[in-house]
């Protein structure tokens, strides 16, 4: 009803890749089997990795915390099922680098014994603190793929927020997990939104959904109608299908016409964005007391026999899901977690599902062949036409390719959201996004190096200052000692009493050092004068030798230099004594 009068805006660029979504929406969501072993990475979210609070051998219950958020921007991690902690060690994790990271491995006992948990019945009367505490406890991280801790966004002061945006766009091809979730759990999603409204108190709330999901939109509309009372101000907004409309910045632009300021966050313009699956998880956490231990994952791709969506426990190995979806393992040539535009490849199917794994694509070489050879850039500008951030992708490409980081920064490479639209349209098959990722990484590295070198310089200077101070202190002490000794000596001379005993005990060097200052100065002065004379004489001899072109001139010159050195030394000593 609200959607008829809504003025939509458009974002720059964008592309229309083939959808491939219908394959996985034919069957309802099915419950994936509980695997024998679950592998849970401690870093499933943006921010500090969670800190394990169990040790190998521990028995754990379903829903029990096994790793705690180590910071404000971090997330708790719970046991997805009951069983025994088998190990905590580094394993392959779902990450673009293909590197290993710490994982907690649980052997399930198949009994699904729950830890004590309780929902909040009157959550719409609860205060924000209680609700946020529940979300924090449940370890929810942005389930659209980014994995930003949800409680952090929920903790933004309500006074700052006027618009809540629920991201149900799901703009990437192949993925249908949010679509199926909305079709089957629309009521819970609306309740989740109500919880967020209770916390953030926004003036309005928009659900942005692409027009390629009419059934999901209808389900939400129905749920809104059933749930409706006057306090709600939830607008379901159907937006045109165009990639990347589901990008946070782009969705905000479509719905409100506003842009998130550079280097800022949506809260800077009074908005907060939540993925629809995260909203569902919020409902479960608050109303049912269920932490985030499972999610909906699309298993699709042409190597999969029965593509569909699964409700899957976190930590389930991808190979398990592929088996249940009847994938032909030998046909898989590229295995992707996430969508075909922004997802990353998995090196092996033994990597496990995390909080952000919305889709698994098992593709054969026919659908996703190896990247074609990079041709020369012909500056056709199709990339700039596609760029939703209104960058100049080809300029960035030239700068990245020549490692000209300064210019890349000046051309706002930091504003690239890596959506892949430019690479998608590039007729020369240039892996543009990888060039940008490389340049961004190098820029970050250079910044780290610069910080490091500034730190090192500071420490070096501090150390030098310390050493100088130590030398000065030693010097001062020595001088004080000398002065004291001289005083003693003077006192001794003044009193001509039997001094023999005393002077016997005095060691000779100290006595030399303790020579009265005026006398020492006099001696030094003599030395300087003598050295000066020697230098003058040596100079004369050298001049004569040079005039007569004698062979001895070289040797004389060396001698002169030595004399000059001696003179300098003597002068220095004298100066020091004068001080």
């Amino acid at each position, binding site marked *: 009803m609200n959607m008829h009068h809504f003025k939509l805006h458009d974002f720059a660029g964008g592309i229309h890749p083939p959808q491939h979504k219908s394959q996985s929406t034919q069957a309802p969501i099915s419950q994936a089997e509980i695997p024998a072993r679950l592998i849970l990475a401690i870093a499933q979210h943006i921010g500090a990795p969670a800190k394990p609070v169990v040790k190998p051998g521990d028995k754990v219950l379903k829903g029990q915390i096994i790793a705690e958020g180590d910071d404000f921007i971090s997330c708790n991690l719970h046991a997805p099922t009951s069983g025994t902690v088998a190990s905590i060690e580094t394993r392959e994790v779902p990450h*673009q680098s293909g590197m290993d990271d710490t994982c907690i491995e649980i052997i399930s006992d198949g009994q699904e014994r729950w830890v004590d948990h309780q929902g909040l019945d009157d959550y719409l009367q609860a205060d924000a603190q209680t609700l946020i505490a529940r979300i924090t406890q449940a370890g929810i991280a942005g389930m659209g793929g980014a994995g930003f801790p949800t409680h952090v966004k929920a903790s933004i002061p309500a006074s700052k927020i006027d618009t809540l945006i629920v991201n149900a766009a799901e703009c990437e091809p192949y993925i249908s997990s949010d679509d199926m979730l909305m079709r089957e759990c629309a009521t819970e999603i609306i309740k989740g939104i109500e919880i967020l409204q209770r916390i953030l108190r926004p003036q309005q709330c928009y659900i942005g959904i692409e027009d390629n999901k009419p059934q999901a939109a209808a389900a939400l509309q129905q749920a809104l109608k059933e749930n409706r009372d006057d306090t709600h101000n939830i607008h379901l907004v159907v937006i045109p299908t165009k990639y990347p409309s589901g990008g946070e910045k782009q969705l905000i632009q479509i719905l409100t016409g506003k842009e998130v300021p550079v280097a800022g966050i949506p809260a800077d313009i009074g908005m907060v964005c939540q993925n629809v699956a995260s909203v569902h998880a919020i409902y479960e956490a608050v109303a049912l007391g269920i932490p985030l231990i499972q999610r909906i994952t699309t298993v699709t791709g042409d190597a999969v026999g029965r593509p569909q969506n699964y409700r899957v426990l976190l930590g389930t190995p991808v190979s398990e899901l592929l088996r249940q979806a009847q994938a032909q393992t030998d046909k898989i040539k590229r295995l992707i977690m996430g969508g075909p535009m922004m997802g990353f490849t998995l090196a092996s199917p033994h990597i496990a599902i995390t909080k952000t794994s919305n889709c698994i694509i098992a593709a054969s070489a026919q659908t996703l062949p190896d990247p074609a050879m*990079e041709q020369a850039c012909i500056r056709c500008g199709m990339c700039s036409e596609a760029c939703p951030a209104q960058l100049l992708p080809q300029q960035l490409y030239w700068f*990245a390719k020549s490692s000209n980081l300064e210019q890349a920064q000046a051309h706002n490479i930091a504003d690239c959201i890596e959506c892949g639209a430019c690479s998608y349209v590039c007729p020369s098959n240039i892996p543009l996004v990888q060039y940008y*990722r*490389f340049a961004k*990484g190098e820029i970050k590295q250079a910044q780290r190096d610069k910080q490091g070198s500034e730190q090192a*310089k500071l420490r*070096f200077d501090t150390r030098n200052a310390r050493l100088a101070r130590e030398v000065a202190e030693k010097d001062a002490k020595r001088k004080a000692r000398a002065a004291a000794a001289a005083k003693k000596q003077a006192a001794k001379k003044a009193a001509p009493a039997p001094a023999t005993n005393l002077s016997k005990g005095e060691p000779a060097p100290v006595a030399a050092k303790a020579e009265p200052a005026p006398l020492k100065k006099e001696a030094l002065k003599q030395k300087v004068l003598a050295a000066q004379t020697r230098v003058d004489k040596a100079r004369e001899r050298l001049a004569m030798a040079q005039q007569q072109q004698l062979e001895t001139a070289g040797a004389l010159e060396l001698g002169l230099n030595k004399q000059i050195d001696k003179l300098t030394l003597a002068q220095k000593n004298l100066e020091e004594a004068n001080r």
Partner: protein
Amino acid sequence: MSIIVISVLALVALAILFGAILGFAAVRFKVEGNPIVDQLDALLPQTQCGQCSYPGCRPYAQAISEGNEKINKCPPGGESTIAAIADLLGVEPEPLDAEHGEEKDVTLVAVIREDECIGCTKCIQACPVDAILGAAKQMHTVIAQECTGCDLCVEPCPVDCIDMVPTERTLQSWHWPKPSALPLIATDA
């Protein structure tokens, strides 16, 4: 005749006028930049390793600025630092002088094999950035975060218990490499 006089006068007048403008501009728009030593010092990697044969980065920067030192004696900075200095000074970049060491691909950090350490404090005295902790007859350890990888501590150690190990890449510090230039277009630089 008068034409010649007029043209000479005109040229002289022009010369005076433009000279005055130039002189005024030179004074009015004078750029107060950092002294060149500071700029050079900022480009050096501040490892204070002494591989350039100067006791630290600043003295090397000083020597370069005085014009009596080559710019290619900094192995930790490598080609990129040489290029940056060449750019700053407006001279041709030179290849790294191998006499002073080679550029390393990975960053290194010193690690003390602690059970072998006899607590002689020699490495502590050698460390230019105070990145080694310890006291006489006590085991020493390197604060990895502060270590610049200069390896000045390796040589003085009487029991050879200091290793230079490459710093580990973490998920956070990893980034995509530049797409590999295919051999057939490698010449397309």
